[in-house]
């Protein structure tokens, strides 16, 4: 039985991961911002088979609250085996271009708050010499594109940071899983019209939980075919890339 801390537990992907884990009887501590939705998820996971579900409502952009939140989670669960960091917002690129404040806020939510959490979580797991840190990054972080480079650059920060962290924690036996979802039909992507590349959150969650439970300490595209799509996008020479609309 694992002790799982989920940060950003009301995100659709995180909720579906938790549903899969709940049927396996694990223990949870959920952290999120919306109390009504968090309560709904707590009862849902208990009914699906979770043996214990704790929760805490906080705003993750309040960095000073992180240490106390981790203390509460560790105390509530009696230890930490897996930490999934899943919170985020999809930035309005056009609005960000006109506002320094908004741009910085998006970078803070999607990039800095994750780095702040990772710094603390990494030290805790490194000290206990076991556990898994899983972070939802994005394919958008692989290369900046005009349609969403603010969000993309925050995610690029997360991807680069976790890559380094993975190397550092390798020798302590702590896994760091960087998950890079493509198009997933979640609350965050509601405004998009959905084509054939889109997958359901439950299917994405199946891939994510399999990667985490399998003990991989790697970068994982969700679903896997995004590896090839992003490979092609990364291979386009900058001189050509700057002329195309993506």
């Amino acid at each position, binding site marked *: 039985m694992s002790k799982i801390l989920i940060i950003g537990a009301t995100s*659709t992907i995180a909720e579906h991961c938790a549903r899969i884990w709940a*049927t396996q009887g694990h223990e949870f501590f959920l952290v999120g911002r*919306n109390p*009504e*939705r968090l309560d*709904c*998820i707590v*009862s*849902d996971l208990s*009914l*699906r088979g979770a043996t214990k579900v704790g929760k805490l409502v906080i705003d993750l952009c309040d960095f000073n609250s992180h240490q106390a939140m981790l203390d509460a989670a560790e105390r509530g669960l009696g230890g930490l085996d897996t930490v999934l960091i899943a919170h985020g917002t999809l930035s309005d690129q056009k609005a960000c271009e006109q506002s320094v404040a908004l741009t910085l806020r998006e970078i803070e939510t999607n990039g800095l708050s994750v780095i702040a959490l990772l710094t603390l979580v990494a030290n805790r797991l490194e000290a206990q010499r076991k556990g898994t840190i899983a972070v939802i990054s994005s394919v958008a972080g692989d290369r900046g594109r005009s349609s969403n480079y603010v969000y993309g650059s925050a995610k690029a920060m997360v991807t680069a940071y976790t890559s380094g962290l993975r190397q550092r924690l390798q020798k302590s036996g702590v896994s760091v899983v960087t998950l890079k979802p493509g198009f997933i039909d979640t*609350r965050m992507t*509601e405004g998009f*019209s959905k084509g*054939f590349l889109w997958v359901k959150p439950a299917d994405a969650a199946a891939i994510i939980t399999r990667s985490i439970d399998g003990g991989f300490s790697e970068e994982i595209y969700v679903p896997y075919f995004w590896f090839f799509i992003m490979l092609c996008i990364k291979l386009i020479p900058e001189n050509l890339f700057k002329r195309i609309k993506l």
Partner: protein
Amino acid sequence: MIVSGWGRYPKIDSNVSRPHTRKEISKLLAIGQTIARGSGRAYGDSAINPINTMEMRWFDQFAGFDPAAGVLTVNAGVQLREITKVFVPRGWWLPVTPGTSFATVGGSIASDVHGKNHHLVGTFGEHVKEIEIMLGNGEIVTASASQYADLFYSTCGGMGLTGVILSAKIQLAPVKSGLVKQKTIKASNLEELFELFEENADVPYSVAWVDCLAPERELGRSVLLLGDHAKKGGVQIDSRQRFKIPIDAPGFLLNRWSIKAFNSLYYSKAKQGDEKLVGLFDYFYPLDKIDNWNRMYGHSGFIQYQFVIPKQNGADNMRKLLGRIAYLGEGSFLAVIKLFGGENDNLLSFPFSGYTLALDFKVSQKTIDLLNVLDELVIDMGGRIYLTKDARMTSNTFRRTYPRWETFESVRQKYGAIGKFSSAQSVRLGLL
């Protein structure tokens, strides 16, 4: 965004909002009119409001379960397949299920759906103990047979027109196995089939597939599929989707010859008296294995037409209706007949004691003309058409066949639903 029902006809431009919290729902209600939508499995335009359609997909959590009594509390957006996957392994299942597991609890209540066991246990709504409803003014009330009873009987089968269904308490039924014992019996005409239905009235599940394009002398040849839950075999279930139709099939793929060939083949392949054990999903939801099977009918979409006619002169009347369909050369892969049990107290509920037939038609002017003719015949026979599948019935037809509609409107008036909840369908049917 362009929205349509499962039949992909009609297609309507609507703003779609997906609230995350109850507060967000009440905010949407304060702005103007709307209709709640579940998985979009109603076939026509009943879950579309041209101004604002409210999808309940994020309200998809279980809220409580009493393992001694088998009473489950769920939010409205939970799909029936989730209940099946989580509760069959614990020995409990839905007392009533429609032919798709993707339907939500809210949608199943609003449509007062029926299943293959209607003749014994009635509709979905008859197993709902309580419904939490948000009224047009944002107030939340709990309706049941004993409190707000008028609201309760209007909401079960009320097509979402009384308020937003937030959650419900459902009485589940005990089940011992994830397998179903299926028995196949062939009938060569309608009289034979209807006799078989009566003879097997104590079998929990029964439904017949009928060849609607059979030559005249064989009209009504059919395959009756009887089912009952197995007593053992384990409670594991397999709900995987195995096939996918990624794009619209070309419109010409389904024509009278291809459908005729399919139906003949299906009839001749069925083995008389064949008995076997099949998985629960295979028995109840065969089409759910094919993702987007609605694309089979091409870009223009299809209409599913389902009516019920009284038992009296049932075989003659059914023959008359099937004859009319065959005469015009329209037909469908899926024409199913079932014996219904009695009518319930829900004001707009569809089933009553008699025989129901459901079939699909590719949308065309010819189809619409045929259905208008069938409507008149069904009305004359004392029948009615299922609102959940309807996309084109007139308000005149509706009022003649759902006589309790005036009471329904007065209940809506009483609870402030008029002007708040409406769908493209309700406008067409003349509900305010």
